[in-house]
């Protein structure tokens, strides 16, 4: 089998000029068997389990980066939902100590984020789940690397509005306690959360998973944009076809690195998440892909169709490339992490309403957007509930990562720095859903027939 110069050049260009990378290698670790009645022993077990595995991950990832000349941008850990393992140590100070233990293990091993400080509360809240939510403002503001999630609904359970109603207040406290409200960027609320998602902040190691597994997130909006740029005039069928082919190739690279990394670590290979994920790097923007389709600015009418086409083509290409496609596997459109999204908001092309509409056709929801700090907590709850309703009714994962920034008004700009980027503060509808949300309870699980 010979590989042509063109093929070698195509791969090399993707890496050198179009920001192709393995976005994340995330090791999912079961911590249930670390539980001990002595909390000191419990913490030590958790630290040792996380640290030893994380060190190996970092070391082996480096070897493969060298072998294939492809950057592995992030090495991360996801763990069993913490509320579950803390059931028998249900004391606020212990929750915080556990978060600090995880933070320390991650830092010592050179891991930038550890996900799973969360709970599955789609049907109801245990004492431990409530306590976890209570301590989140402290955990998210006092730790650097610990990420948190809540799953508050599913197609089978419906939507737990009582859990949603706790979040506006929690997020506002977190924002107050942390610099630039940055703590809120480490919390995601889901419905239909996948148990093998490798992407932060929402990664956790689900209860249906084994002891340890390696999940990979592959990315490359820049690569997709490059092929779209080369096909400015083609019709939608052809456009979908060329995206499929490209995503096939990048997914195969992810599959290869994932399999070899898992083999080197002597653990089972989990999934490849094929989500197109933006970064703050120039040219690594999903919004720019949509604009290369022929949309003047993302958010313009026509954007929903464009995102739908992109999303579907990404899934088809990825599904052909790997039998292990899992996680979120969609297209992320985080506002603060994507230069095209930031620009669209600043120019008035994209508002919160259109952003919500776009999430109806693409994973994974309203992501990394800032709102004024004086938005009432029940309005934050309503923004979350709306987005999650889209997931419940449309049989998909949706999520919200919202940052209410104290003292900021719509139109101002908040710089988070690093991977988290810069967020233009978005305008929020001033009318209230307070009296509707205070009814509480649970949105019943939807019918799965009569799907029009």
């Amino acid at each position, binding site marked *: 089998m010979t590989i042509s110069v063109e093929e070698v050049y195509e791969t090399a260009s993707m890496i050198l000029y179009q920001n192709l990378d393995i976005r994340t290698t995330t090791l999912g670790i079961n911590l249930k068997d670390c539980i001990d009645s002595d909390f000191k022993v419990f913490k030590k077990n958790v630290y040792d389990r996380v640290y030893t595995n994380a060190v190996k991950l970092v070391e082996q990832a480096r070897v493969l980066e060298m072998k*294939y000349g492809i950057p592995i941008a992030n090495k991360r850990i996801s763990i069993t939902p913490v509320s579950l393992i803390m059931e028998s140590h249900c004391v606020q100070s212990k929750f915080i100590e556990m978060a600090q233990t995880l933070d320390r293990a991650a830092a010592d091993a050179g891991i930038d984020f550890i996900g799973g400080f969360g709970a599955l509360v789609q049907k109801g809240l245990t004492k431990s789940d409530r306590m976890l939510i209570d301590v989140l403002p402290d955990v998210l503001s006092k730790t650097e690397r610990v990420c948190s999630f809540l799953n508050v609904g599913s197609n089978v359970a419906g939507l737990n509005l009582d859990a949603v109603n706790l979040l506006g207040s929690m997020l506002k406290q977190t924002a107050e306690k942390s610099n630039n409200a940055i703590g809120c960027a480490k919390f995601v609320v889901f419905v239909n959360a996948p148990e093998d998602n490798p992407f932060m902040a929402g990664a956790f190691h689900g209860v249906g998973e084994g002891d340890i597994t390696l999940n990979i997130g592959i990315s490359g909006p820049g690569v997709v944009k490059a092929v779209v740029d080369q096909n400015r005039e083609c019709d939608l069928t052809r456009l979908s076809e060329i995206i499929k082919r490209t995503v096939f190739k990048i997914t195969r690279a992810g599959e290869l690195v994932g399999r070899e990394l898992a083999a080197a670590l002597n653990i089972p290979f989990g999934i490849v998440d094929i989500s197109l994920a933006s970064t703050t790097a120039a040219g690594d923007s999903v919004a720019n892909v949509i604009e290369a389709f022929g949309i003047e600015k993302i958010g313009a009418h026509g954007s929903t169709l464009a995102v739908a086409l992109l999303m579907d083509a990404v899934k088809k290409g990825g599904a052909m490339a790997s039998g292990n496609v899992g996680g979120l596997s969609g297209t992320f459109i985080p506002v603060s992490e994507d230069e095209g999204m930031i620009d669209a908001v600043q120019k008035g092309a994209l508002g919160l309403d259109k952003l919500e509409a776009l999430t109806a056709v693409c994973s994974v929801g309203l992501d990394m957007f800032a709102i004024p700090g004086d938005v009432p907590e029940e309005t934050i709850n309503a923004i979350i509930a709306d987005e999650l309703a889209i997931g419940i009714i449309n049989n998909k994962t949706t999520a919200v990562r919202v940052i209410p920034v104290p003292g900021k008004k719509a139109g101002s700009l908040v710089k988070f720095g690093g991977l988290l980027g810069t967020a233009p503060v978005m305008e929020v509808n001033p009318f209230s859903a307070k009296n509707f949300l205070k009814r509480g309870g649970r949105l019943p699980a939807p019918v799965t027939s009569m799907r029009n």
Partner: protein
Amino acid sequence: MEKELLFITVIGEDKKGIVAKISNFLYKKDINIEDINQRIMGDGYFVMTMLVDIKNSTIPMEKITRELEKIGKSLELRVQLQHENIFKMMHRV
């Protein structure tokens, strides 16, 4: 011993001495060149690919990469070393 095949990709502006410099380095380190190709791409870039076998190499892969990067810098070219598996995976069904 089975071959261990890697691709060296050189991208940039065509100039004298590219093949000479790289092949001289490979010869010194006991790295065998299995195949060599070059082309001017549609976008104007000069691209050369070398398929090399490093099973007898006197230095580890990490060092080869670093040395090639140095040569690339001196010629103002991008040089990449990648195991052939990634190309097989990406370009063959």
